[in-house]
């Protein structure tokens, strides 16, 4: 059965009435209340800049020196505020700057200021005590003489001991702790 539903259409206009004037694109894109829309855009932009310039540093992991904890190609963030109120702890995965922040290095902090660090057959000894490290897959064969860390020095190494470099860094080179 045919039904005539042309009268249901809400877009129908009465003949003879002028169509409403079309608004320019910049008016239409700003919605019914352009002031409010611009206010929202400015707030969002400010929040994004503050978050990603001052609080979080976005990083893309390249390579396998932190494998299996972090894999090649993963995206993560360094929290720049993580060490403002508390000092770094043993086992923290940190982002370390090189000569700047365009290229950073991801390592795990194991030696803390004032401690003695040594590597024997890929195992780390802090003040002569062997460290329990459940996150590593390959210990590698690194050996190093015992070093005494200074008052502002930390000792860092990657989780993939077979290929990762290790060494001492000062706190000024710590960008922050990795977020997740």
């Amino acid at each position, binding site marked *: 059965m045919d039904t005539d539903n042309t009268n249901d259409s809400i877009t129908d206009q009465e003949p003879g009435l002028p169509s409403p004037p079309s608004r320019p694109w910049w008016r239409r894109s700003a919605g019914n209340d352009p002031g409010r829309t611009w206010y929202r855009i400015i707030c969002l932009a400010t929040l994004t800049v503050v978050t990603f310039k001052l609080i979080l540093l976005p990083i893309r992991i390249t390579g396998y020196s932190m494998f299996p904890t972090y894999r090649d190609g993963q995206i993560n963030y360094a929290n720049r505020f993580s060490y403002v109120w508390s000092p770094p702890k043993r086992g923290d995965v940190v982002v370390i700057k090189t*000569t700047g922040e365009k290229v950073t290095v991801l390592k795990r902090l194991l030696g803390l200021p004032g401690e003695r660090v040594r590597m024997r057959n890929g195992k780390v000894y802090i003040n002569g005590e062997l460290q329990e490290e459940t996150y590593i897959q390959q210990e590698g064969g690194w050996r190093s003489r015992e070093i005494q860390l200074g008052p502002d020095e930390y000792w860092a190494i990657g989780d993939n001991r077979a290929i990762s470099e290790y060494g001492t860094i*000062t706190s000024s080179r710590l960008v922050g702790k990795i977020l997740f």
Partner: protein
Amino acid sequence: MCLVALWLGWKFFHFLFPDDTTRIQRKLTRLESLVSYGPSTSPLAHLAAAGSILEMFDAKAEVNIRAEGRTWNLNGREEIKTAVLSSRQQEPQGLEVKITDPIIEKRDDGSIVSLATVTARIGSEREPMVRILEFHWHKGDRSQWLIARIVTRKDLEWGRNE
């Protein structure tokens, strides 16, 4: 309007007559593009690139670089040229080099030391080499900045005593 014109004029003047820091930055960018090459680079292009790289070095330049368990100790342009050409032959899959975050320090009118993070990736390998290199520059006869020495600083240990 006047201020904008002044600012543009100042920018243009600095573009035409850059200061030493800008010159070194430009040289590092040029070095980056010369050292990088693709997998299908012709032998002639390798030779031309090696020639251009050598023009950036002083005749008595020294290179001491440690990478991938190997150490290169090169003295003079000839040794550098041989090393550049042989490494390009050994790694035909290409090399991508990026020189980032240079720190440029002018020692005196005739010498500059710059530190930069150098990331090198051979072919499509996912594990890049990251090194902090120290470039020593000195002014040549024609007031050109030439590389006098390149040494490696371990990426994790540089700057401990600075």
